[in-house]
């Protein structure tokens, strides 16, 4: 048996292994922990060897899953031991037990630094490894220069330098400021000439991280990214290095130079076509790792169609092979391929094979197949795909059903060739997987049926059919009861569809359903009653009896309905007016699609959704609905009050009828928040659509989400509420200043100061709130709530309830930008000082321009883009008047400070400005935005502005944003040249310098 070389440790491990059960094991572990604890307490008597042994035991226990909450100090202290064996153990155990946020690590910074700058190379290695694995920001700030020196030092051996390179990579990830772009780019280029493959591999990883953030500065590294031919692994030249090299290339914009392009494509072609499937698994894996990376690069480079079809043919082969990994990756990469235009039809050829993959024994593969099917679906193949999904639904495992049904519902809606098919699909969906069909899905059906008269009899008949089934899902009861209530009179002549029969078949279900469904059933009964003209006394009595019964229901909602319907139904003909058919719904975007985006979905899926959304601006189903509502005039529209769909029935009732006074007052005062039928139906959908009728909005928005949105909207303009405590400084000014820079004070009053520090990277942001107590007594009941607008996903870490005197707490806040919008997040901050309760609402500077990253474009890049984005909604133009007069230079500075980089020389007219930037959000990804401002030298208060981007919302929001910047005067005396001090975004090359001559710049690019 192999032994650890430490007898005590081996004995302990054997003991643990010999424990017959978990209890015994715990006893043994507890005993050992007790032992270690006492030994550590009288540390004096501990020899280095013993200390080492105990620390290892601790790690072992920790690995077994037990809490080890002491002894960290001992592990850290071993780091400063003079001898190698102890030091080694100290470093390794520390980096396993602790993570970067641990306080103890700070104690070690000095020792670690001494080891790094010291002469002992083995110590250097240990220190670099630990910092590389768990170093945090503090390490980054204090060690980066030393580490950089080591990488390029000529006296260090490769083993130190490769570690230093990865260590720097870690530090760079923790704080990008530590790598100074200007000087480092050249060094990086030199590094790529390295002969030692270990150093080269590590450097390449570093380069990938650097260029992923800012490729501009590293152009000089580009030519060196060619694949070297040494270091073989299973006969393949260093596959990892090849993969990394190609990954690095993907962060550079498409190569334009025809020669480079050709030679690059030759290499890629060789990889793509020359990779054979071989017997040896590892060789296969390695070569395919290279192949798939090459594929990714081909996609990035926007290759010619011919090459694309070759790629897809290759992938088509892959998805049919036996080896599951290749199958998986084939499907995954096909989904990525969907992003490339023009390949849709070629991918469709493989549809049958993809559908087969949906039945693969491996859930990972099934997921990929589902994703791909979802992405590739369009009008031509929707019927096949959706039917395939439905069929699969009955056998699919539970883990996938929800996703599956949501996707099927979305596809059915988007690509429905006709609406009756859509209704069929959804009803089948509910029938087969009712548990996984959310309310949104059936709300949507109701909406379509209501808006399309032709569909109504069909839908009602279908609903009737489903009710005949012996056991049906509750959701099916809901939807069919609703549909039959509204439209069963259209079926009256068919057999089995008399009001009485309809009533009895629905009523059969009543005992089995929940309260929310009972509410719907009561409405249905009332409607049936209304449609039965002349009244059928027997049916009337039956239904009245039910209403009577529920008048004393414990559920207020149901009680109210029962009472009201009962009273209403005695009004005779007048009933017609109130209980008439529902009016048409206003056009809305499907809430399902939004839901699909909200659900935690993986990137491939996201991209597919995005792609779909771009290609198909409006779903076909919606278009159909549109036409019919334009052509046919619905009879219900004549009804006065009922026309406002946002009002709940009870409100309508009480306002129109002089009913029992007390009842009427209850119903008006409580406009039945959520379980109301109409509110139910409208609530989740209304959030999507434009406000129907201004005043009644509050009624419509019944879900929590809606309330939050309304609140936020109401709060934003009011920055501060009346407080006993006066803020120091102007809050609005502070906010505007923070919109342009990334750190500063957000709020201050005599007791508290809130500072903010932010880092932005792509569509992610990380803000740290510094809550500082300025006093000598603690602040209590501290609360910080974030009210994010719908386009930001924000997560605030825990805020302590008490801030000790003169202390500062840091609360990180993660931000993710989902889509372009100018809405502002609000921080609701409150605390108690003595007896004063202070509450402030502060806007957070997570504004649109934070998600912009400067990009300079050349004339050759600019003009084709500018022309291809022609006209609204992608390109919008507006004449802006009342502009704050400023010299052109100042305006250029203003643009630059908002990360819209002015590109001089592109516009021949010196009075015009052209600026470009990249906008990041989850829905748009990185998207290029271009702007042109034409000013009038005679009248500086007006200008013409043109904004273009690939996304209509983005164009609009950006235009409005720029307008706000130009028109309003946020801060009276603006500093003359507010250069954006954004540390996270590496500084762009000063815009004036390189782009004076587009030709020269172009040369530089290539």
């Amino acid at each position, binding site marked *: 048996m*192999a*032994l*650890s*070389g430490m007898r005590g440790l*081996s004995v302990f*491990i054997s003991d643990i*292994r010999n424990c017959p059960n978990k209890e015994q094991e715990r006893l043994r572990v507890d005993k050992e922990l007790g032992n270690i604890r006492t030994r550590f307490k009288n540390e004096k008597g501990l020899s280095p060897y013993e200390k080492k042994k105990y620390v*290892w035991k601790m*790690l*072992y226990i920790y*690995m077994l*899953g037990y809490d080890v909450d002491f002894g960290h100090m001992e592990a850290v202290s071993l780091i400063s031991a003079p*001898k*190698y064996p102890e030091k*080694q*153990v100290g470093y*390794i155990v520390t980096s*396993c037990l602790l*993570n970067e946020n641990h306080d103890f690590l700070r104690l070690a910074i000095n020792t670690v630094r001494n080891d790094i700058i010291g002469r002992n190379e*083995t110590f250097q290695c240990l220190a*670099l*490894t630990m910092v*590389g*694995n*768990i170093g*945090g920001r503090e390490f980054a700030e204090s060690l980066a220069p030393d580490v950089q020196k080591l990488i390029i030092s000529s006296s260090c051996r490769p*083993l130190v330098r*490769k*570690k230093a390179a*990865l*260590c720097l*990579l*870690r530090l760079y*990830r923790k704080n990008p400021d530590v790598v100074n772009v200007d000087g480092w780019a050249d060094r990086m280029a030199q590094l790529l000439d390295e002969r030692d493959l*270990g150093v080269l*591999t*590590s450097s390449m990883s570093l380069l990938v991280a650097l260029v992923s953030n800012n490729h501009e500065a590293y152009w000089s590294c580009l030519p060196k990214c060619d694949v070297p031919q040494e*270091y073989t*692994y299973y006969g393949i030249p260093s596959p*990892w*290095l090849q*993969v990394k090299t190609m990954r690095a290339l993907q962060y550079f914009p498409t190569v334009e130079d025809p020669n480079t392009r050709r030679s690059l494509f030759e290499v890629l072609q060789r990889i793509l076509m020359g990779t054979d499937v071989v017997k040896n698994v*590892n060789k296969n*894996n*390695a070569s395919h*790792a290279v192949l*798939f*990376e090459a594929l990714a690069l081909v996609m990035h480079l926007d290759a010619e169609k011919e090459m694309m079809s070759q790629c897809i043919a290759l992938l088509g082969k892959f998805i049919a092979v036996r080896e*599951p*990994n290749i*199958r*998986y*990756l084939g499907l995954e990469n096909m989904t990525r391929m969907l992003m490339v235009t023009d390949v849709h039809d070629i991918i469709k050829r493989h549809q049958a094979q993809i559908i087969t993959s949906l039945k693969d*024994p*491996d859930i*990972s*593969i099934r*997921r990929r197949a589902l994703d791909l099917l979802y992405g590739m679906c369009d009008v031509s193949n929707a019927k096949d795909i959706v039917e395939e999904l439905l069929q699969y639904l009955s056998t699919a495992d539970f883990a996938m059903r929800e996703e599956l049904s949501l996707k099927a519902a979305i596809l059915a809606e988007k690509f429905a060739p006709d609406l009756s098919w859509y209704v069929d699909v959804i009803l089948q969906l509910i029938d087969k997987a009712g548990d996984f069909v959310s309310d949104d899905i059936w709300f949507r059906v109701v909406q379509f049926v209501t808006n399309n008269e032709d569909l109504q009899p069909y839908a009602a008949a279908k609903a009737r059919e489903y009710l005949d089934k012996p056991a049906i899902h509750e959701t099916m009861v809901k939807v069919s009861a609703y549909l039959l209530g509204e439209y069963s009179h259209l079926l009256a002549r068919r057999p089995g569809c008399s009001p009485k029969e309809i009533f009895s078949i629905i009523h059969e279900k009543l005992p089995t359903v929940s309260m929310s469904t009972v509410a719907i059933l009561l409405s249905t009964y009332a409607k049936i009653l209304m449609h039965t003209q002349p009244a059928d006394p027997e049916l009337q009595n039956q239904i009245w009896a039910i209403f009577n019964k529920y008048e004393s229901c414990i559920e207020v909602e149901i009680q109210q309905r029962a009472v009201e319907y009962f009273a209403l139904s005695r009004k005779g003909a007048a009933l017609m007016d109130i209980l008439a058919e529902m009016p048409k719904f206003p056009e809305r975007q499907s809430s399902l699609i939004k839901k699909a985006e909200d659900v*935690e979905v*993986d990137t491939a899926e996201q991209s597919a959704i995005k792609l779909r959304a771009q290609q198909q601006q409006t779903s076909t189903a919606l278009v159909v609905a549109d036409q019919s509502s334009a052509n046919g005039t619905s009879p219900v529209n004549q009804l006065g009050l009922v026309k406002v769909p946002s009002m709940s029935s009870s409100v309508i009732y009480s306002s129109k009828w002089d009913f029992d006074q007390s009842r009427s007052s209850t119903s008006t005062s409580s406009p039945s928040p959520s379980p109301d039928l109409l509110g139910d139906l409208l609530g989740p959908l209304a959030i999507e659509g434009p406000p129907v009728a201004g005043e009644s909005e509050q009624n419509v928005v019944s879900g929590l989400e809606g309330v939050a949105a309304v609140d936020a909207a109401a709060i934003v303009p009011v920055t501060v509420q009346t407080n006993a405590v006066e803020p120091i400084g102007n809050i609005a000014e502070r906010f505007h200043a923070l919109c342009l820079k990334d750190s500063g004070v957000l709020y201050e009053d005599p007791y508290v100061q809130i500072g903010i520090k932010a880092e932005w990277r792509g569509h992610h942001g990380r803000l740290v709130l510094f809550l500082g107590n300025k006093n000598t007594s603690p602040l209590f009941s501290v609360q910080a709530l974030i009210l994010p607008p719908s386009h930001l996903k924000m997560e605030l870490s825990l805020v302590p309830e008490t801030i000790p005197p003169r202390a500062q707490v840091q609360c990180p806040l993660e931000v993710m930008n989902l889509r372009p919008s100018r809405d502002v997040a609000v921080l609701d901050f409150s605390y108690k000082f003595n007896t004063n309760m202070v509450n402030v609402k502060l806007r957070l500077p997570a504004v649109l321009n934070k998600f912009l990253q400067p990009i300079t474009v050349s004339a050759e890049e600019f003009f084709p883009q500018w022309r291809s984005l022609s006209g609204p909604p992608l390109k919008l133009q507006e004449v802006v008047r009342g502009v704050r007069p400023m010299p052109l230079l100042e305006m250029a500075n203003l643009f630059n400070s908002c990360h819209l980089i002015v590109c001089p020389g592109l516009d021949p007219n010196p009075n015009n400005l052209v600026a470009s930037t990249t906008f990041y959000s989850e829905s748009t990804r990185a998207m290029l935005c271009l702007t042109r401002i034409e000013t009038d030298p005679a009248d500086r208060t007006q200008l013409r502005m043109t904004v273009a981007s690939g996304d209509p919302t983005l164009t609009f929001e950006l235009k409005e944003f720029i307008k706000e910047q130009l028109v309003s005067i946020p801060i009276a005396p603006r500093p003359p040249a507010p250069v954006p001090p954004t540390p996270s975004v590496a500084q762009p090359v000063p815009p004036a310098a390189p782009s004076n001559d587009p030709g020269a710049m172009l040369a530089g690019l290539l």
Partner: protein
Amino acid sequence: MIHFVLLISRQGKVRLTKWYSPYTQKERSKVIRELSGVILTRGPKLCNFVEWRGYKVVYKRYASLYFCMCVDQEDNELEILEIIHHYVEILDRYFGSVCELDLIFNFHKAYYILDEILIAGELQESSKKTVARLIAAQDSLVETAKEQASSISNIIAQATK
């Protein structure tokens, strides 16, 4: 980037954990629990990738041990799979046809070796020979120190006799 490395036995016992992204102790045990549930139940002949919480876990089974590495969605899965194999080969060479017991009793060695292969969740050295050489150098350093210590203690022991 590799976020963490896990070695789990078929019985769900953890043999090695290495975290390159910050996780608290609580999160760590949760991750382990969840992933062993997902991975150990997967049948043979399925693919080596599992999608998990927006990440991908690349795993491979060697005898009774599962080697798992968690990476980002867009990372190259096969590359990671071969990093796993690379690690296993180096372990194999070091221990001489490695078995689970070797890794249990010499778990610290497994950590040393891993540190020579990965730093910051990225591959550091792709040559097996180089890694083997460096580990051997480390071992001999420890050996020398031990000999020195014992000789000094001998001297002291003799002097105090």
